[in-house]
Structures are given as C-alpha cells and as structure tokens.
C-alpha cells in the first residue's frame, strides 16, 4: 500500500464552501432554532421557553388539520400525476418534428412562475370572466371555488396537475427513450401483450427516473404555498390551508414567532424524514432485486 500523505492545509480549501453554507443555511436555520426555544416580546429580549412551543404545536388542533389536508393533497396529487405522467410519456411521439414540438409544449408549464400559475387559475376559474368558471356556470353546473370547499380543492388539485404532470412525463419520457429497440422487437417475437411490454420492459427501465419523479413531486407538493395562496388564500374557511400557508399566517400574520419556529423545524424534519425513508426503501428494493 502507498503511504498516505496528510496535508492539513487542504482544509483551507474547504473554507469558502463552509462559509457559503454557513450563511445560506446554517445561520438562518439556527435563528429559527433560537426562536423555537425562546419566547420574545420584541426588543431582542429572549426568555428561555424550552420545549413549550413544540409541546403546544404537537397538540394544536389547527396544525393537525393543516397536516391532514397536506397529506391528503400530496396523496391525491401523486396518485394523479404519476400515472398520468407515465401515460402521457408512453404516448408521446418518439422522434421527428412532433417529438420536438411536444417536448417544448410540455416544458412550458414548468417555466411559468408559481404566482403566475396561481393567477392564471384564479382568473380561469372565475364565474364572471373566467373561461372555465363561466363555461361551467353556463352549463348549469354550480362551480364556485371561493364558496365551496370541494370546488376549491378541485381547482387547486387541477392546477397542480396542470403545472407538474409535465415534469413526471418528461422524466419518464427520458427513461423510455433509453430502452434499446431490440427489447421491443424481442417482445414482439415472444408475442408479449401491450401490458406485458409495459410491465416487464418499460416500467422496470423507468424505475430510476420514476423514483426521482415521485420524490420531487412529494417534496414539492408537501411544501406547496404560492399557487393555492394566490387562488384561494387557504379558503373557503380553512379548507385549503396547507402547512405552508398556515405557517405563514402564524409567523407573519399573527407574529407568533415562537410557535411558528417550532412548527417550521418539525415541518422540515418531517419532509427530511419522509424523503429519506422513501429513498432508502426504494434503493434497497433495487439492491435486493439486483442481488438475487
């Protein structure tokens, strides 16, 4: 074995990155931690509160409601966007002019700023001037997202599906494009059905990108703020108040910095935990499959 050379000066090379991370992540996070464990009445005066805020938040009915709505929202959105994205990807043209055109059109929703997406749907759904709202009203369907919680949910979910299905579809499309033609030819020779081709060729080859797609969509939908805030403002009542919306109300609206900070930390940890569990399970699944 070669003698390893120790050069402690090399640590200085890491310094710029450390500084950057400190200012961009660690210090802001620590400020939040500071607020979470203290009570403050302004004037930069802090009083130690211990786990009081955490205790309050864990037992808060309001937070439970927001968390429930958040989980439901993420579940619905994933349940629609992932199968729909796969379906779209399977039906996209594989090459030629149409393939390029479809790719560009599909990418468009991803390029629109979040609050613009919200505004588009806010107007789109209005009964007086919105294309969707007005059309539904003239068909005699009672649709009003500002009054009816169900309508509000439908609008918010439809908006998210419109905004993000492209991402799933584009990722799956990339996965599909990497499958060599010989697989499809072999399947033809083996007389495989369309379903068998999907189940045994396309799905296994898409697994990697699907994992990324599901992870991204979970994290994003779990943190969603801007679009529903612009469309419904969390209403009617609290029916579309998701975790982020509730958090902002608490922190900026009511200026309850302590509880909001505790809330933030738990929120952050939940996302981290779920993503980690999800990722580990999926990669382990992959490994055992390869190993056996």
């Amino acid at each position, binding site marked *: 074995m070669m003698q390893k050379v120790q050069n402690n000066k090399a640590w200085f090379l890491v310094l710029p990155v450390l500084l950057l991370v400190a200012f961009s992540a660690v210090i802001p996070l620590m400020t939040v931690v500071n607020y979470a464990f203290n009570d403050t009445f302004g004037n930069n005066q802090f009083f130690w509160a211990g786990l009081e805020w955490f205790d309050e938040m864990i037992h808060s009915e309001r937070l439970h409601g927001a968390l429930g709505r958040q989980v439901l929202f993420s579940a619905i959105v994933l349940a629609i966007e992932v199968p729909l994205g796969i379906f779209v990807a399977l039906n996209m043209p594989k090459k030629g002019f149409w393939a390029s055109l479809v790719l560009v059109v599909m990418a468009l929703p991803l390029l629109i700023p979040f609050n613009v997406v919200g505004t588009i749907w806010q107007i789109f759904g209005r009964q007086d001037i919105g294309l969707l709202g007005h059309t539904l009203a003239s068909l005699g369907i009672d649709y009003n997202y500002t009054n009816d919680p169900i309508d509000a949910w439908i609008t918010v979910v439809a908006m998210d599906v419109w905004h993000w299905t492209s991402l799933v579809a584009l990722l799956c499309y990339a996965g599909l494009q990497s499958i*060599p033609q*010989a*697989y499809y*030819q*072999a399947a*033809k*020779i*083996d*007389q*495989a*059905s369309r379903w*068998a081709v999907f189940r*045994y*060729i396309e799905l*296994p080859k898409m697994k990697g990108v699907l994992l990324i797609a599901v992870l991204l969509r979970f994290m994003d939908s779990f943190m969603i703020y801007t679009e529903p805030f612009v469309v419904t403002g969390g209403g009617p009542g609290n029916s579309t108040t998701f975790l982020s919306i509730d958090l902002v109300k608490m922190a900026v609206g009511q200026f309850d910095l302590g509880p909001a900070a505790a809330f933030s930390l738990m929120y952050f940890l939940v996302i981290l935990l779920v993503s980690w569990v999800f990722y580990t399970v999926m990669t382990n699944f992959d490994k055992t*499959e*390869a*190993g*056996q």
Partner: protein
Amino acid sequence: MARITLQDLAHSYSPHPRSEEDYALKKLDLVWQDGGAYALLGASGCGKTTLLNIISGLVRPSQGRILFGDRDVTDAPTAERNIAQVFQFPVVYDTMTVRENLAFPLRNRGRDAAYIAERVARIARMIGMEEMLSRKAQGLTADAKQKISLGRGMVREDVNAILFDEPLTVIDPHMKWELRSQLKQLHRQFSHTMIYVTHDQTEALTFADKVVVMHDGRVVQIGTPEELFERPAHSFVGYFIGSPGMNFLDAKIIGQRALLPGGEVVELGADYGVLAGGSRIGIRPEHVHLAAEGGLPIAIRRVEDVGRHRILRSELAGRDFNIVLPEGVPLPAAAPRVAFVPGKISVYVDDWRIAPPLSERAA
C-alpha cells in the same frame, strides 16, 4: 419448420426510393432450406440486419414476397411467423427470474402450466442453466443473458427458424468458442433452420454449412466455406474471406494469358478469350509460392510472424501483394520471385468472377 423463400425481395427505408442507391437491400431471390445452418456474412451496414428483420417480420419489405413453405407471410406479423431471434445485445426481462424468462413466450401463447414447466426444464438443461432457474435475470453475465435469449427462442417447439443477429458481439473471446460450439450442437440435435448474421468470417465459416455473403445491399455469393475460399464469385468475397484476403492485380486477359501493366505475363491455364471491361486476376496468398527463377519479381516490405505461418507483405507490379509462407520455408535472399499455383487463379471483370471454360478446367 419450413423452407423460407425470398422472392424478388427488395427494401428501402425511404418511402419513395428513386435510384438503386436508395435501397438498403437490392433485389434478391433466395431460398433457405429447411434445417440448414446458414451464415449471413458481410461488412457493417451491408443490409444483413435488414434482411434478418424482414424474415422475422420486424420490417416489411418494400417489394417482393416471403414464403414459409408455400404460405405467403409477407404481411404476417412477427408472432404469427414463429421465428426466434437472438439480438446483438442480450435482451432479458430484468425483473423476471431465469425461469420466468424462459417461460414467457409460452405463457404469452397461453400454454398450460405443466407443458411450460416441462419445456423450461428441458431448455434449461440444454443451455446449462438449470441451477440458475430461480435467480433474477438482472445481474447475470452477458453470456448467461445471451443464453437466456437463445433459450427463449428455443423453448417453442414449432419455431420455423432461429435468427442470430451478431449474437456474440458482447461475449468474452473464450466464451465465444464455447457458445458457438453449443449452437452447432443444438443445430445437429434439433435441426432448426438457423441463420446467423455476422461480420466475422471465422464465426461464419465455423458455424455454417452455407455462407451467404452480402455486400452493399446485394447477395454476392452463396456457398460452402470451401467454395468461398477457392472460387470467390465477387472480388468482395475474395477480400473479405481469408486472412489476409485475396491479392488482386490489374491485367489484360488475352486467351490463356494475363498481361500485367509492367509487361509480365501470367499463364491462366484456361482460355478465357478476350475480355472487355476492367479485368483483374485474383490469387489467394496461400496459393503463391516463392520461385527460384521464372515467376514474377516482388519487393518485400514486411514479414509478419503469426505463429503457424508467416505473412510476407510485399509489392507486385505496384500493388500490395501478400504471400503466406508455410513454416520452415526460408525467407528469400535478394531479388525474390513468386509463382502462382496453376488453376488457382481467378479472373474478374468489373468485380465479378468469370468462370473458366469447362473443358479446360479439367486439364
């Protein structure tokens, strides 16, 4: 099983082919006898794979017909033709076990479980993968995967033909020999029609009873390995078969003699009359020997020792000229000369071989 007939077949990938250049496969008529072991040999891009895909039904020919036995299958889909095909890169269904992989074609055809189990066991024994049946196909070596591909093809009893599209490309050299001899053995045992596409002449010549040589979208010769070696019908066959390939010299053919550009004369041993067009003579490096006197002068540039013989790289009448020197024959000293084995010279006009007149070939 059936005889496979290709009638007036041609294929172009462009929808409106204008000239012959647009055809990936130029017009051909070909019959593959039932139970034959064929090799389809040619350089990359000469149309071999196109021809194979036409037989298996993955590509529909732009013109002509394909018959299996007496049945026209030109428009029949792949599944109906009962063809097995093994591709260049192994295709296995990763998420299935080896057993499921082998059973897949039968299951898709709705056969009952007992029959499937019996066939899979038999095929697994044949390809030597009995111990691996319960393993996932993912993570197996390339040659194991290629064996599975082959097994999937053979699991059906009624396959009309098994097509191989350069199946050993990704296999380690030492495994190549083993797999090839296994294939050969399977052929003897089950006498399926086998068509083996390759650009490797050793592979083609060792595997096949009959070799079909393709060049530039055209079938230039069909013959036994011996015929290809002794009487290449086209200059491409001369180049392509043999290592090194055939030597070609520009020559004017007058009766029994070939006149080289430098004025040297080569006796042909047969009367060809007077030939028009760009005529050349071809001689295998194995059919040239050094001559003490007479013969033609050569300039030796390089000697390559390849073990069981040496190859003399030299120049004759301004052309590259290779000679195979058997072991034990000393290298020539100054001013080397060569002579050709009589009767082994082929005459070509515009790349096609002119058969010597029959009466004199016996002489």
